[in-house]
């Protein structure tokens, strides 16, 4: 009798690989020049309501600080900006991307973006700080 696995193995030999190749246009800046010479894999789109890196609209924020109360990871700090207004500062490297702050914000000034590649040499870099 043919072992059942052998059937699937032979079938697999004639199908396309299942693995998604790394979407090259999403790699960090310093390696993309190198990769540009090679073949670029089109990115696989993330799901529609994917919770990626946050974005913050500084001007819209009313400084109610509800987001600070619900954030499980202590990402959000209360600050006052140049004009003495109550605003927030976020340390995205600590964020767990739960999206609770987005839900709770009364003026909807926080959003999630599809961006997910956040590796950096410096945890406090500009890319990882929102204010």
């Amino acid at each position: 009798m043919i072992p059942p696995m052998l059937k699937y193995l032979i079938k697999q030999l004639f199908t396309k690989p299942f693995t998604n190749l790394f979407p090259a246009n999403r790699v960090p800046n310093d390696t993309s020049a190198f990769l540009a010479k090679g073949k670029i894999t089109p990115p696989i789109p993330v799901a529609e309501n994917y919770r990626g890196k946050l974005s913050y609209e500084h001007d819209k924020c009313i400084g109610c600080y509800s987001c600070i109360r619900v954030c499980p990871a202590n990402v959000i700090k209360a600050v006052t900006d140049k004009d003495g207004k109550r605003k927030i500062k976020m340390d995205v490297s600590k964020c767990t991307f739960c999206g609770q702050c987005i839900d709770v914000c009364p003026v909807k000034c926080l959003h999630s973006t599809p961006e997910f590649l956040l590796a950096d040499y410096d945890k406090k870099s500009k890319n990882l700080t929102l204010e």
Partner: protein
Amino acid sequence: MSEFTLPVGPVHPAFKEPIQFKFKIEGEKIKSVDIDMGYNHRGIERAGMKRNPVQIIYLSERICGICSFSHPFSFSRAVENAVGIEVPERAHYIRTIIAELERLHSHLLWAGVAAHEIGFDTVLYLVWKNREKVMDICESITGNRVHYGVMMIGGVRRDLTEEHCQKLSKAMEYYNETLTAIEDVFLNEKTIKMRTQGIGILSKKDALALSAVGPTVRASGVPKDVRVDQPYAAYADMDVKPIVPEKANGDIFDRVWCRLVEVRQSIQIIDFCLQNIPKGDTLAEKNIVKLLADLSQAEGEGIGRHEAPRGECTHYVVLNKQPNPFTWKARAPTYNNVLPWVPMFKDAEIADIPIISASIDPCIACADRVTIVENNKTKTLNKIDLHKKSIEKSKRLKKCQ
């Protein structure tokens, strides 16, 4: 023949997580085993007691990367139980759907790991290839592949759209088809049979005496399943039966069989939910700030149980009019399944250690929450000490009520 001690772990390529086994061996045969846990204690409950219930939901998600819906589910049920929050009917159905999706992907993940542990990596890739679909579905419904972040006290944070429902029913069709291949391989392949039949036996008597849970206990012929024993969420509306093999030997093969049949059952449950999902709200209290204010005025204790893929997951919460809960206790299913390892390992061969340890689908980090470090010294507590501690804690809890 003389006896040797063979330590395996805490860090060992055969285990995914740190745990130490000290096997007493005679030749190739294991005579007895001593299990040493506590290498992965993270103090999550303590961290939780310094946070408010909404923050704990996300912390409890991180108790386990695979049961990342089961823990918040149990926690939310515990808080709802303590405060008496009524969850809307639609939220019950969405919770059930996601819980079953989690079971689906967890059991498929386990099937792959089990194949890997017996050195059959082609099966691992076959299974994990099929598992991708459910992860994608989870991503499109909840916004993330692993930590769904969709649970909220009093309901769920995201609603199912018409599009999601269509995607879900397509995915279920896909699984109905592809599962045939997986079942074919696992139940008919000679290699798998040779490595799993008659190995790691847990008798019905031992399973009951040691309070095993989940597929581990069901494969030994005990019909124990929280979804049936104390129906909750949408499980109460349907006819769920515990999956028990007809002639249970309690060996690894039965555990494989149990999990594969449970995957089929999950598909049926999801199909049922999709057909019968009612319309309406998904959250009892939409304003999270108000919910937090209400919870900080609440008093009482609550318990939440859920049948996680690995077995019963229980959370216990005490609220005493403070913003943060007074006590939060989580018991992961692996905690119950540690002791059943002892009879399973008895008289097994050394080569079967990886598959036997994997057969309960262990999640060590989830279960590790009992190490005691006092004055920088790790202390092993005996039964009397533990009993004393338990009395002390009960007194402390009583005082707060």
